[in-house]
């Protein structure tokens, strides 16, 4: 028996040679890999990435998150914000006297800042009838940028007048239909608002009266027991 099947030495047998010739056509032949176009995966399927566009989903999600965060922040801040303290001073137009912060002056009050003052007087552009409304932003420190100007003003040099814009509306006083109740709001009320406010005041006053009565009686009982 030859070693042909083992290491291809010696004489091959007839059957083996026939089979070798028959199967030789199927032997391995090195050639480059050819993948059919239909079996070729798309780039997105393999990487999971989408073609980058201006409004891609992640960018939209990021933008929506930022907008939501900003809205939530604005809402929180608007709720916690303290209303600006304002004090109304009425000055008659054309007159030579005016009253500012309870003191009589010989000339209408001018807009300006005192070097040592803790407040800046600002003029509101709003006119009500024949009265000009001047508001004082209480306890507002003199801004650093205006301190020089304030010093010059204090020294009598009128070369510079700081004018600040204040958006806080002037309080508006409302009187109830029965003439008794008074309250201040920022803007005049609509008829519906006025009706609702009057009803609320009446309800709160009644509730308050009953509560106070109960409280007084309890105190009296407590005293009597002592």
């Amino acid at each position, binding site marked *: 028996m030859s070693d042909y099947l083992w290491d291809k030495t010696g004489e091959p047998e007839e059957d083996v040679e026939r089979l070798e010739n028959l199967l030789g056509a199927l032997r391995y032949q090195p050639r480059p890999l050819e993948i059919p176009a239909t079996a070729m995966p798309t780039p997105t399927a393999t990487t999971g990435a989408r073609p980058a566009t201006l409004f891609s989903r992640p960018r939209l999600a990021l933008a929506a998150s930022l907008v*939501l965060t900003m809205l*939530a922040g604005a809402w929180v801040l608007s709720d916690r914000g303290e209303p600006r303290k304002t004090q109304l001073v009425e000055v008659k137009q054309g007159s030579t006297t005016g009253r500012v912060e309870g003191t009589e002056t010989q000339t209408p009050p001018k807009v300006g800042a005192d070097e040592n003052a803790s407040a800046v007087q600002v003029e509101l552009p709003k006119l009500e009838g024949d009265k000009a409304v001047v508001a004082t932003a209480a306890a507002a420190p003199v801004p650093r940028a205006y301190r020089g100007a304030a010093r010059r003003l204090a020294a009598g040099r009128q070369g510079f007048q700081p004018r600040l814009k204040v958006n806080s509306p002037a309080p508006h006083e409302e009187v109830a239909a029965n003439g008794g109740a*008074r309250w201040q709001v*920022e*803007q005049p009320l609509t008829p519906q*608002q006025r009706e*609702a406010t009057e009803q609320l005041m009446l309800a709160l*006053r*009644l509730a308050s*009266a009953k509560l106070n009565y109960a409280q007084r009686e309890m105190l009296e009982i407590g005293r009597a027991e002592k």
Partner: protein
Amino acid sequence: MRTKLNSWLKLLCLVVALAAAFAAPARAQQPQGAGKLQIDNEDALARKANELIDVSLDENLLRIIPKKIVTKTDEGKTIDIGKIVGGLRGVYVRSYGFNNNGEYDERNLAGVRTQLRSPGWARLVNIIKNKADDIVHVEVYMMTSAGRIDGLAILALEPKRLTLVNIVGSIDLEQLSLIEGQFGIPELGIGGGGDDKGAKPAKKQ
């Protein structure tokens, strides 16, 4: 890399959405009916009464009231009505005035008392004062949950006046107690006979 970024963005969106949901006002989480009493079905009383003060302000009406509304006491103290109203979800008052004593009795209050016996309500004050055959009976009930006030109910039974007050929502009692006698109107003085002097002209329905 992009997959990781996507995951982070999704997580961020989730966190923001959760934060927005939890940051919503606590009142929004409260059940709408908590603290609300049904006091508007006292037709029998309304027919007998010669005077009726009827205030019904639900949440929608309370919202149209300006938030920044202040008034001053006679002593110059400022009361911020806006702060009081801020936590409210309803204000309901029925005050019936009668010509004679005994025109109403406890049976007229059976419905309200049944509601006040339901869970959540607790009677804080019960004052009964017998003065020269005139009995004044004032009860104050409160509904609380998680340490906050959800509702307040006041029943004031006077010889010629019956008053039911129901305030729904969170209210500052200290601020509320300052309101009596303010707004340039004399105090109601309910202890002295029960006439609401100076009150708004009542409407008879």
